[in-house]
């Protein structure tokens, strides 16, 4: 405890039953040099103010629950060291999401976007059990593996300037996820997903600010997925000129 110093955390508070708009509350707490930002927020919750609400679970950058704005930047708070910051820290709920309470944001719209890209393997005909397993080579896996490392932490939506402007925009993680299944050698659902990607507020709404990839704590590079999806949409469009496709 000899290394302990104190730090001021300015945290956004919002109780929908009491507050008309979010307010801030300051907490002066003792911190340890090896703490992550989440440890400081947990300390406040456990030792100082039990009314503070925030999400967290695994503490090892796997569950994707503890995303917050730290000094204005979307961060996975269990992954960033407190010592990277000065004596004062501003902690807010993730930007571009409706706030439920304090640091907890509404995830429903985000989950709806996820579901809309059909993030599962679509096959024309299900394989019979006797036919064995669906085989995939390491090279085939490598094509999409990076995009499957997403932990749904929503940091990319918080950083995306297009989401900020157009909340209906399908967004980086959902497009990366759809693209991940499109690139899966076992999948046959490209036509269905490409139809979604041709819709309004999808791949071509991305202005390639690259902020999503900058903030991704798992190095998924959603911006690359979005641009690969754009290229696929172009190939799809050009193919459609030669071989007319069914539907729109």
């Amino acid at each position, binding site marked *: 405890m000899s290394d302990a110093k104190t730090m001021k955390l300015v945290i956004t508070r919002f109780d929908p039953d009491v507050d008309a708009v979010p307010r801030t509350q300051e907490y002066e707490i003792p911190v340890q040099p090896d703490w992550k930002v989440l440890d400081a927020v947990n300390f406040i919750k456990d030792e100082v103010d039990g009314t503070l609400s925030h999400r967290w679970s695994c503490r090892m950058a796997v569950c994707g629950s503890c995303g917050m704005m730290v000094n204005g930047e979307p961060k996975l708070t269990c992954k960033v060291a407190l010592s990277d910051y000065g004596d004062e820290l501003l902690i807010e709920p993730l930007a571009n999401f409706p706030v439920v309470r304090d640091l907890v944001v509404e995830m429903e719209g985000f989950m709806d976007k996820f579901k809309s890209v059909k993030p599962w393997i679509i096959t024309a005909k299900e394989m019979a059990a006797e036919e064995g397993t669906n085989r995939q080579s390491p090279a085939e896996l490598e094509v999409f593996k990076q995009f499957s490392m997403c932990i749904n932490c929503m940091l990319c939506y918080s950083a995306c300037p297009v989401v900020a402007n157009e909340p209906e925009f399908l967004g980086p993680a959902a497009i990366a996820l759809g693209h991940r299944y499109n690139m899966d050698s076992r999948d046959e659902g490209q036509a269905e997903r490409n139809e979604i990607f041709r819709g309004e507020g999808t791949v*071509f709404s991305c202005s390639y600010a690259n902020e999503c990839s900058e903030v991704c704590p798992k190095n998924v590079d959603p911006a690359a997925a979005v641009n690969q999806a754009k290229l696929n949409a*172009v190939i799809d469009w050009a193919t459609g000129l030669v071989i007319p496709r069914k539907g729109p």
Partner: protein
Amino acid sequence: MKDLLLRLEPVIWVLFGAGILVGTMLITGWILIVGLAVPTGLVSADALAFGRAYGLASHFVGRLVLLGLIALPMWKGAHHMRHLSIDHGGAERDAVVAPILYGIATIGSIAAIVAVARL
């Protein structure tokens, strides 16, 4: 108009992407040659003598390159400005702004085709 724009997005994006390539690579090279290499004497000014330049530009491949150099950056600019407009709260006015910008790029491209064809 929205539906038409949506359907044209892939081709617009290809022209935009090609415009970026041309804008950042070929035009940079062009500026290096004309703006630096020739004035500093690294490349002889005779290399850009009218007869040579005209011969290069009026060749079939030369005309195509010239067309790309003139037309594609216009699509890059139009697409950038459209997104700039959207990013500054212009999602509502996009149905008006986008046709104007792409219209200018289309007219510019047609003018470029006519110009290189008449060389």
